[in-house]
């Protein structure tokens, strides 16, 4: 039995179904990332776990206890969870110390114990010198750390994060990603983390759950999700890719538009319907001549950009599709010239959806 389980959880608002039967298991101490575009239901799923949103059907269980089901919802305050909000939600009328101490005071801990634990967590998050400041007097990054400290100080059973970094600028965001991962490694809280930023998910998560349109598209380790996508949506959403489509020849081979055969090293094509495969930009070999017997096609260079470390090509192939490929700087083909593309078999991934 997993620590946190979602079983066929659905959420409807009137006629609109936002979460469409989500099944998910999170082991104790794992950091799970819900990743998806905006409107995919990931934040609603998180708020279901938190108890802010009632489930329309299905169950949420913590250590086997049902905390949400169609009829009953244990209120957020009864769940011993913590949450970090997109807006940080720091109470502007309380100092940093008061913000962090609030949860401990609610738990009726003695004053010196509260003080000790607040100081402990403020030290870990490097906020101790700021304890008497108000949130309005802090920078974005500092506010973010206060919000982390406030959530961690109560030693929650489950820590929830709702796009915690989306309000930070790029440099700070990168720094905070590693900070969150460091704190997770230190405290080992079971964590559910919502984001739409794939590199954020890659750096922080043990398990990435890709969501789309209220469903889970795929769940797995970052490597699974990147190297072994199961659907076109996942392949495109994580890392960017070329999708080639054509007629199905076998479980792993298809005849692509432009009349060449693509033999995939992994994955499985859908038994019927459109056959599609994914090849990442930097896995394609670009050359003036044909480089292999199979998985090759000749096209025309439509665009070529010198990027310093590499060249970024757009090549139009006979089927009319445009393939984006990354080539070493030495491979220099002017626009309008013909180019041979080679898709190495082990890098081609057959997709079932």
């Amino acid at each position, binding site marked *: 039995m997993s620590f946190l389980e979602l079983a066929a959880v659905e959420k409807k608002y009137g006629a609109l179904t936002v979460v469409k039967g989500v099944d998910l298991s999170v082991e104790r101490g794992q950091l799970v990332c819900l990743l998806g575009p905006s409107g995919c239901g990931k934040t609603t799923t998180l708020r279901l776990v938190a108890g802010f949103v009632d489930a329309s059907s299905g169950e949420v269980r913590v250590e086997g206890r049902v905390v949400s089901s169609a009829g009953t919802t244990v209120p957020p305050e009864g769940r011993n969870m913590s949450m970090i909000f997109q*807006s940080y939600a*720091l109470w*502007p*009328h309380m100092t940093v110390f008061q913000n962090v101490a609030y949860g401990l005071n609610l738990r009726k801990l003695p004053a010196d114990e509260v003080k000790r634990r607040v100081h402990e967590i403020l030290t870990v998050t490097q906020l101790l010198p700021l304890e008497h400041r108000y949130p*309005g007097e802090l920078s974005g990054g500092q506010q973010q750390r206060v919000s982390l400290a406030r959530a961690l100080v*109560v030693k929650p059973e489950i820590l929830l994060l709702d796009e915690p970094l989306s309000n930070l600028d790029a440099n700070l965001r990168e720094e905070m990603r590693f900070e969150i991962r460091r704190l997770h490694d230190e405290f080992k809280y079971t964590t559910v983390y919502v984001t739409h930023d794939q590199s954020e998910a890659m750096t922080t998560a043990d398990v990435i759950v890709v969501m789309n349109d209220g469903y889970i598209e795929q769940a797995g380790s970052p490597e699974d999700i990147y190297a072994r996508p199961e659907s076109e949506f996942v392949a495109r959403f994580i890392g960017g890719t070329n999708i080639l489509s054509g007629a199905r020849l076998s479980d792993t081979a298809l005849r692509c538009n432009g009349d060449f055969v693509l033999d995939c090293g992994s994955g499985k094509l859908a038994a019927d319907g459109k056959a599609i495969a994914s090849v990442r930009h930097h896995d394609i070999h670009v050359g003036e001549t044909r480089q292999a017997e199979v998985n090759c096609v000749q096209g025309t260079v439509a665009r070529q950009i010198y990027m310093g470390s590499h060249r970024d090509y757009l090549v139009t192939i006979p089927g009319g599709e445009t393939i984006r490929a990354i080539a070493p700087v030495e491979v220099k083909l002017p626009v309008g010239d013909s180019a041979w593309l080679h898709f190495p078999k082990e890098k081609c991934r057959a997709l079932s959806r």
Partner: protein
Amino acid sequence: MTATQAANGIVGEGRRKRVDLSIPTFVLLGGLLTILVVLPLFWIIFYSFRNDVDGSFTLQNFASLVTDSTLLRAYLLAIGMAFGVGILSCLVATPMAWLVSRTDLPGRKLIRILVTASFVTPPFLGAIAYEILAAPNSGVLNVLARKLLRQDSSFVMFDIYTFSGLVFAIACFTFPYVFTLVSNALDRVPSDLEDASAILGGKALTTVRKVTLPLVLPAMLAGTLIAILQALTMFGSPAILALPAGFHVITTKIWSLFQFPPRLGVAAAAAIPLLVITVMLLRTQKTILGRKGYTVMGGKSGTPRITELGRWKWPSMAFVLFILSLTIFLPYGAILKTAFMQTPGAGLTWENFTLRHWNFVLFEFSATQLALKNTLFLGIVTATAVTAIAVVTAYLVTRRSIRGAGYLGILATAPVAVPGIVLGVGLFLSYANPTFQLYGTLWILLIAFMTIELPAGYQQMSSSFAGIHPELEDAGRIMGASRLRTLWDITAPLLRTSIIAAWCFVFVGTIRELSATILLTTANTKLVSVIIYDLNESGDLGAICVLGIILLAVSFTVVCIANNIPVLGRARNVMPRG
């Protein structure tokens, strides 16, 4: 409590069962608001189809709107007056707003404050001030003019007891509506829009005409409509100035229908078109202001550009001073002088100085003490009740914790479309009957004031709730605080400022109300505003001015408190940037 629910409670790991107060609160509030808002309107409609004598169904009441020439005339005059006021307000307020927001006119801040001050002046007090200043015989200005021009007592320079006099006296105290809207809009027109016109070769005046003016046009129209609405539904000023002039506007006409023998059916029927016009005007105003891309401009584009007046500086100054003296200096001067002088027309000398009026009002005149007590009592109770209702309603509506909460918001805003006199009629019909017998008690006035002030209080509170990010409350819940505890620890402290402000504004609005009061008050439930009106009929201007000063002093004090509450100083601006 059913067995399944109890069982489910156990499934939820035996956690303390929540007592969910939101449903009973919702029902209670819904009921209360319905009674406050819907009931009076229902009775108006009911009575408008009822024959006063035998209680049978009739259309006669509506027919008399057209056939009774005094009613029709009152409507036409009221509409004419309202449009006159609207146009005059707009003509005066727009140039002033431009001068104050967009030029280097000296003392702009002070002018703004002074204009806002005329907001606080109850219009009926302004009308009385103009009675003192410009009554045909005894008016201070006429006396002065006779002296200066060496004319005899038949010479009359100003006569306030005329249609135009009435329009003027009302416009003096409604132009701030236009002024405030237009100057706010001008403050927000980004200067780059004007710079863009200038860079394309537009001269300063062309830019004003082609860019600035069209951009603030919606604000001008909206402000003018509000001024029209104010004038149309006003009771005090017309009662003070139009009745001596020998004509009725619709509000005074409705009031006269309540005089013996009362014609309730006709009064109810006469109130309905007023209600319809008000709703239409408000809808139009909303449509005009609602075109967001047109009126509301993001405030990021730096300071608005300032036109240098150059040699026009002094003429502009003279214009502003002239307007301010008409709306502030002269009326307030007249009130102050009358309060401390033997007779209003007497010269400003020590011999004429007296505290007689103060003595009379505060100690001799028996009605004052009661009226002051009533007014204060009603002001405090109304402000407290309305603020409380507004807070709960705004919470339910903005947090959408219950389905259907939106209707509460609609109910709470609806009275804005009900003119005071119409509400007065409705409440009289609802509660001055053998079942309730509230007529002649303070309760009927309390109900009236609560209904009238509800929209203002609600709007204030709902915008402040909207300003508090819901995640602040969510954060409290997930940290382990119950819903009520969160409200107490987090929401309440953040709302404190707005709650005090809402309370103050409701209080000020209440103590100056006259339109609904005049129909609902009796000898035992006199209020300061009614006493002022009564004293005016007996011509005791000195006493009126003393009461007026007391009213104004209280209002200004409360408004100052509202504007100067220490805002949660350092604690603001916690929302993430960007």
